[in-house]
């Protein structure tokens, strides 16, 4: 068992899978994931689908906020754009999903670029306000452009189909979702070690200094917005296929805050953190229901009181707790556990 880390070349340092053990465990995980519909019950498959969609959106937001340092409270707008694009393309034009999902991503990326240019000069609080107002404007347009989005009546989205083969139940949709999630996660992980990723991190750390050493702020900030909104758009498209019915009230500021909570709880700036955060916040409502059920045996009035609102309260509480107690998030906890094992028997 190795103790400490000794890297002998730059290539080794940048390698995504550092040791053979990582690859073995990853292979085990992939096999378990791919065979999930066979050994897992339908609810687990459904939850995995929802988590997958959340992972894609959280990854996008983490690239923008965690890697590049641009706070965005408008991510739900891009998810909405992606969802409605894929819904409209598949209901009105009858396009198959392998066209609508990239189209949704690209249109969302286009709007991301549109948002990115005005926001170049803004930082911190002002950027959060600007992205929030963008989110509000998109929410308004989605509700009121009835000719396009059917407003509050909602759009009913048919199951995605390709060459006649329809992915009508969650188990079949599962494979599409995990394929896309795997692809996008690998892309994001690779992004962090390329020139573009390093430029993003430079912008986050000290953007003026980055410009001085030659990082073109305009190009990379707009690229960050574009990539992030592409991910959001794809997540929206998957969401529309997964739930089958779109309504404007799903894409409010609360959704944006939910995504921010996912990346904060997971760990800002880390790809694994986005995955952790997304999965954690997707299963938190079930955990709370479970706790309420468990305690309800002794305190029956608790069970009678329980309703959806508790999830939202827990959600806000989690954001506060993680920021106060564990700012590096779940990923920070994971890294600490890993390094304590790695450095054993030494402490550091």
């Amino acid at each position: 068992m190795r103790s400490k880390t000794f890297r002998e070349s730059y290539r080794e340092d940048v390698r995504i899978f550092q040791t053979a053990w990582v690859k073995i465990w990853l292979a085990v995980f992939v096999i378990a994931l791919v065979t999930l519909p066979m050994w897992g019950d339908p609810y687990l498959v459904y939850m995995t689908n929802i988590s997958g969609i959340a992972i894609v959106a959280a990854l996008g937001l983490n690239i923008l906020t965690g890697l590049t340092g641009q706070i965005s409270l408008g991510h739900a707008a891009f998810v909405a754009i992606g969802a409605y694009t894929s819904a409209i393309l598949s209901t009105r034009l009858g396009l198959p999903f392998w066209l609508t999902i990239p189209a949704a991503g690209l249109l969302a990326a286009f709007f991301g670029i549109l948002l990115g240019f005005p926001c170049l000069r803004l930082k911190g609080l002002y950027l959060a306000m600007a992205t929030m107002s963008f989110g509000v404007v998109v929410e308004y347009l989605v509700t009121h452009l009835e000719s396009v989005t059917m407003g509050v009546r909602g759009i009913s989205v048919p199951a995605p189909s390709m060459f006649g083969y329809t992915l009508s139940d969650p188990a079949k949709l599962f494979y599409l979702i995990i394929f896309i999630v795997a692809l996008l996660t690998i892309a994001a992980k690779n992004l962090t070690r390329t020139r573009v990723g390093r430029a993003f991190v430079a912008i986050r750390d000290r953007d003026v200094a980055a410009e001085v050493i030659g990082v073109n702020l305009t190009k990379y900030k707009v690229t960050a917005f574009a990539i992030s909104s592409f991910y959001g758009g794809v997540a929206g498209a998957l969401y529309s296929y997964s739930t089958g019915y779109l309504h404007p009230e799903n894409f409010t500021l609360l959704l944006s805050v939910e995504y921010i909570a996912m990346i904060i709880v997971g760990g800002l700036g880390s790809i694994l953190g986005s995955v952790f955060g997304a999965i954690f916040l997707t299963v938190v409502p079930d955990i709370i229901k479970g706790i309420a059920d468990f305690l309800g045996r002794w305190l029956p009035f608790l069970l009678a009181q329980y309703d959806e609102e508790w999830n939202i309260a827990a959600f806000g509480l989690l954001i506060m707790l993680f920021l106060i107690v564990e700012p590096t998030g779940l990923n920070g906890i994971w890294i600490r556990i890993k390094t304590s094992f790695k450095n054993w028997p030494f402490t550091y």
Partner: protein
Amino acid sequence: MALLFPEVTMLIERCRLPAHCNGSKGKVAESVFYLLQLVISGLAVGSLYALVALGFVLIYKATDILNFAQGEAMMVGAFVCYVLIGSGIPFLWAVVIAAGLAMVFGLITERLVLRPMIGEPQFAVVMVTIGLSIFLRSISGIIFGHDNKVFPSPFSHVAINFKGLVLSHTHLWAMVVSGLMVLLFFVFFKYSRIGLSMRGVANDQDTAMLMGISVKRVFALTWGLSFAIACIAGVFLANVMVLNIGISLVAIKAFPAVILGGLESIPGAIIGGLVIGLLETIVGGYLDQILPGVKDLTAFVVLFLVLMVRPYGLFGEEEIERV
């Protein structure tokens, strides 16, 4: 293009005065009258926004944090006041007691949630306040329920009618109270010792500590005061609209007012609030039949434009970033 969006076609065709302005003789007078009524209503709404914006500016001035939980503080204050009035306490005393309780609540919040975050980057603190706002909103929903409660208003329901221009008593009192509060806080920050120490802490925490100012005490006082103002604003809002959880969302509408006026400026808060209220009401008055709900959008479009052109607002100070 217009075919794709019938709404745009309708906008181009129907952009004219509302239907009740008929008859070409009195048309100019009617339209001026309508505009005046909109201006009065706009100022009334604007003074409410100004009161809310004052709370934001107070916290930002002293602690450099934008408190996203201000709306929820308003809502909790209004609910507490409602409960107090419901148990028989006369209105004015109920407001005073509720404001006192809100101050204590602000002190507790500062101690539990914000004290551990001293020194953390601004993004983290803003996110904590967002988390606090979500938490407070859902806890209030659990405790107080979701149904609309009618706030027992002490103001007479007869509207003041001045040559045909209508203004309700509640709005008038809201304007008076907003004006008083703004004056009070302006004087407080400029001339009083505590106000000065608050500004010092906002400017540079370390230097303030070196000068002997207790940063913890200043933070606690700021949050307490801000929550007390939020309680009063909440009471007014509950009088004007119905009392339910939606009151907290008015604070989000007040963000444009705060940014327009400048985050650190108290006169900016009132001017920003009035301008946003005016703009919203006037745009709503003329465009609401064509684009329903455009009122809510106006404030955010203005916010976006202000951020593009002059992020520091009308009266704010430009932040110089030293590298």
